[in-house]
């Protein structure tokens, strides 16, 4: 019954193209809500009830494809549904200014792709068969590609979109070769089953790292992260919220799914993942701290959080390699909780950033300032998101980082020099990441929302409409819930972890209850801390209400003619850091001196922007070489039709000859 409704919902998405403009949004909303209800029902029954029988979905090439929901899928379904729901509610207000500019078809295409991004993400988490998994994975990439192209009137957007599309296809090829390699060397079917039986018979390294790279491109591990900082700023904010909040996480889903299948060599693979994740985390946040485009900053920050999640996954594998159940549980539950947390605060931050963009039409924080006076609620929402993403108590980011810290310290004490050293490095780097994100978010919040406006904007920004703020408040409620009552969520996570890792028995988890209590205690003290802040603030209010309070201009250290452009800028805020690490953070300066050719010389100009280290030193040289060598083959594409017919004939001839001589 349910599956029939599911198929009907999938089918009627086409109707979006035939509806009048004003109904498109409501219909898309209806589709997404009904899809959320169906899949959340399934997910809920898996999470809280018993196992679910695979549902026959469609026939593909003679095989029937099943939707299989285990606890891992259910967990991701819940996250996807929540983020997409907040996204679609936010969209209504966000796209209002475009209502005149964009045609009906453009809207229909946009919403069609948004709905299909949602559906394909759900399908990715439910399908195990290799071929159909690749198809839905591709659907996910293509629908998000069209979503990125929403503002396609900008020339840059097309370029970024193509860049994204190409990178996603490299990822697809890697995943496909992983599946195929496993399929041909094992006797099981094409899909995760085949990968499992491959891992039980062979060395896992090649196949695992094909998957890791393929899923890692989506997730944004370095050095294959380069699409993120381009695509997220170019996409409209509800899309970047969903992309960064959940679509990127499906890369994590894929990695966890494959990692769970490993039978041998988990220790080494886990250590390699931890090393890559540490580098990813530090590199991501370091770049986030210097960029002036605040959506680019958030994109780099996503990379950083993927690093933290990766450390959790690595810990899980190291624990499995050491046969240490507590470390396995801590690692995996930390990774999953951080996945959930990140989907919450990152979508919140992207929505708040989108509200700023909608009101000011700029993503450059150096043009902004003082927005807290016009948009106090957006400012507070952004502030809460910043505190949460920095892992500060009493919000949710602290809980997942605390769990991962605990896992690292546990692992530190395991015998062997290598682990101890690696875990110590990981510990120090998470601390460094925490410090860097403090710098990043104080800079962003301070520059965008505090101080005085740095430039005169074309129209005065005002608070965005209620329908855009409500989804953000809902997210904040969840952030606070996880921060203050983490044990409620953690016990669910433990349940998920038992459900998906066969090595962990129920008895192991009972031995793990002290950890659960510990998480509860952390939540309790976080609450106390919140109360302490309130108490101090009210004491202060009580003691100062009788006193005189005067408002004067900011103390200018004796200077009597202060101007707004004398304020500290975001760039100068992070300048000393970027100077310190200028071997990774590459700054490019362009300086045009005045040319004295006429009597009245033109203005001189100075620009400086930061380049991505990996893009500049690895990807650009490779693609440039590739382009250069492709020049030699230009003669093939000569525009003469008869030549093209000849190529076809030649191809047939080659095939014929090679089969004749048993070459293929």
């Amino acid at each position, binding site marked *: 019954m349910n599956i029939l409704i599911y198929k009907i919902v999938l089918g009627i998405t086409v109707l979006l193209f035939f509806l009048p403009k004003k109904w498109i949004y409501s219909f898309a909303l209806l589709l997404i809500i009904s899809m959320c209800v169906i899949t959340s029902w399934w997910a809920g029954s898996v999470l809280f009830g018993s196992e679910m029988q695979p549902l026959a979905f469609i026939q593909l090439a003679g095989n029937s494809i099943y939707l299989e929901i285990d606890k891992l899928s259910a967990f991701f379904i819940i996250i996807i549904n929540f983020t997409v729901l907040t996204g679609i509610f936010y969209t209504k207000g966000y796209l209002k200014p475009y209502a005149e500019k964009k045609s009906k078809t453009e809207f229909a295409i946009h919403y069609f792709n948004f709905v299909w991004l949602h559906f394909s993400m759900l399908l990715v988490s439910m399908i195990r068969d290799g071929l159909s998994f690749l198809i839905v994975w591709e659907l996910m990439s293509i629908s998000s590609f069209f979503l990125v192209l929403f503002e396609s009137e900008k020339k840059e957007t097309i370029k970024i979109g193509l860049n994204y599309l190409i990178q996603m296809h490299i990822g697809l090829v890697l995943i496909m070769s992983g599946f195929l390699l496993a399929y041909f060397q094992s006797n099981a079917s094409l899909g995760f089953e085949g990968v499992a039986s491959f891992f039980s018979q062979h060395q896992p390294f090649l196949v695992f790292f094909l998957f890791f790279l393929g899923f890692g491109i989506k997730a944004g591990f370095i050095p294959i992260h380069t699409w993120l900082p381009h695509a997220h700023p170019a996409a409209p904010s509800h899309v970047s919220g969903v992309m960064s909040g959940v679509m990127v996480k499906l890369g994590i889903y894929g990695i966890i799914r494959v990692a769970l299948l490993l039978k041998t060599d988990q220790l080494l693979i886990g250590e390699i993942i931890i090393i890559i994740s540490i580098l990813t985390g530090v590199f991501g946040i370091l770049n986030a701290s210097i960029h002036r485009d605040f959506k680019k900053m958030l994109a780099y920050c996503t990379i950083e959080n993927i690093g933290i999640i990766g450390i959790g996954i690595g810990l899980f594998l190291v624990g499995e390699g050491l046969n240490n159940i507590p470390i396995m549980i801590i690692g995996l539950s930390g990774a999953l909780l951080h996945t959930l947390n990140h989907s919450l605060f990152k979508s919140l931050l992207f929505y708040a950033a989108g509200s700023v963009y909608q009101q000011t039409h700029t993503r450059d924080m150096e043009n902004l300032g003082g927005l807290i006076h016009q948009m106090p609620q957006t400012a507070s929402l952004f*502030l809460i998101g910043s505190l949460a993403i*920095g892992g500060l108590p009493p919000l949710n980011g602290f809980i997942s980082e605390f769990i991962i810290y605990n896992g690292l310290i546990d692992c530190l004490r395991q015998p062997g020099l290598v682990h101890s050293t690696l875990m110590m490095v990981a510990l120090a780097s998470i601390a460094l990441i925490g410090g860097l994100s*403090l710098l990043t*978010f104080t800079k962003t919040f301070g*520059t965008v929302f505090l101080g005085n406006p740095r430039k005169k904007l074309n129209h005065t920004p005002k608070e965005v409409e209620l329908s855009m703020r409500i989804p953000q408040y809902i997210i904040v409620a969840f952030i606070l819930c996880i921060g203050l009552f983490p044990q409620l969520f953690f016990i669910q996570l433990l349940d998920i972890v038992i459900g998906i890792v066969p090595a962990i028995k129920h008895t192991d988890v009972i031995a793990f209850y002290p950890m659960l209590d510990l998480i509860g205690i952390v939540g309790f003290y976080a609450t106390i801390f919140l109360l302490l802040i309130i108490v101090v603030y009210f004491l202060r209010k009580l003691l100062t209400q009788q006193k*005189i309070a005067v408002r004067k201009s900011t103390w200018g250290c004796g200077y009597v003619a202060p101007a707004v452009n004398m304020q500290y800028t975001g760039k100068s805020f992070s300048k000393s850091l970027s100077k310190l690490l200028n071997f990774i953070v590459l700054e490019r300066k362009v300086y045009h001196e005045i040319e004295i050719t006429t009597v009245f010389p033109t203005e001189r100009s100075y620009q400086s922007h930061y380049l991505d280290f990996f893009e500049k030193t690895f990807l650009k040289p490779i693609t440039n070489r590739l382009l250069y060598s492709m020049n030699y083959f230009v003669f093939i594409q000569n525009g003469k039709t008869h030549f093209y017919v000849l190529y076809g004939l030649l191809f047939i001839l080659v095939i014929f000859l090679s089969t004749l001589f048993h070459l293929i």
Partner: protein
Amino acid sequence: MISLPLIIIASLFFMGIVIRTKSITSGRKGPGIFQPMKDVFRLWKKGAVYSETTSFIFQIAPSIYFASVLMAILTIPFGEYPGLVSFNGDFVFFAYVLAIGKFFSIIGALDTGSSFEGMGASREALYSLLAEPAFFILMGSFALFTGHTSFVDIFTSLHFGTYISYALGILATFILIMIAMIENSRMPIDDPKTHLELTMVHEVMILDNSGFDLGLILYATNLKFAMYGALIANFFIESLPIYISILIFLAVQFTFAIIVGILESFNARFRMGNNAQFIFTLTSLSLLIFFGVLLILKKIV
């Protein structure tokens, strides 16, 4: 439990001793030991001037900063007596609670839209982020050494036996003193008595704070010093009778204050550009502790 009143007592005279030491070494008569606290009380009674640029952030920032320092103090144990807040991994909580206070003091400074205060805020953010790994490697090494992860368990099971472990204790004390100097923005990182706003770190951040808020911030600095003093004292308090350990605690605080005073009297502030290098040195020193622990545990032969 017992650590909270002791730290508060120590915080009352700590800064006074620092100032007294400085006046003695420079041959001045100097103010009394309780003068800094009298200043704080005077400020608490005063009205305030707020900048027109500021928003509610500026109003709540000092309170949150103060609350975070108080919360961090609650995690500090006293010998074998745990602090009010004590659980496995509480040192992570300690560092992150302090970080939230720092976050608000930084955005409080940025809220004024001043060019100088942003400069101070940027430096404060940079220096504290660089000091963070040192603290975590230090605590991580002791967690590895003792097999425990809460302050009280770490301190009670630290038994200095071998020569290496004594060396570790001295190194750890040095690192903690230096972290305290960085966190409180004192010499050699920052000179609170400098007359030029361009060369300040912490002082310039609070240029616009006045009245009650300024009092809160100043007192929080005193508390923070006493808090780090208490952390250091914990290295020396073993399972001794309570009256002896209280004496040790007060002696350590006293010595710490004098060391700070002497450091500030005979040391010039580093050039701003060299500060980062200096703070990195602390990280490498804490790595030395880590290697020492590995040696003791015979992980490296």
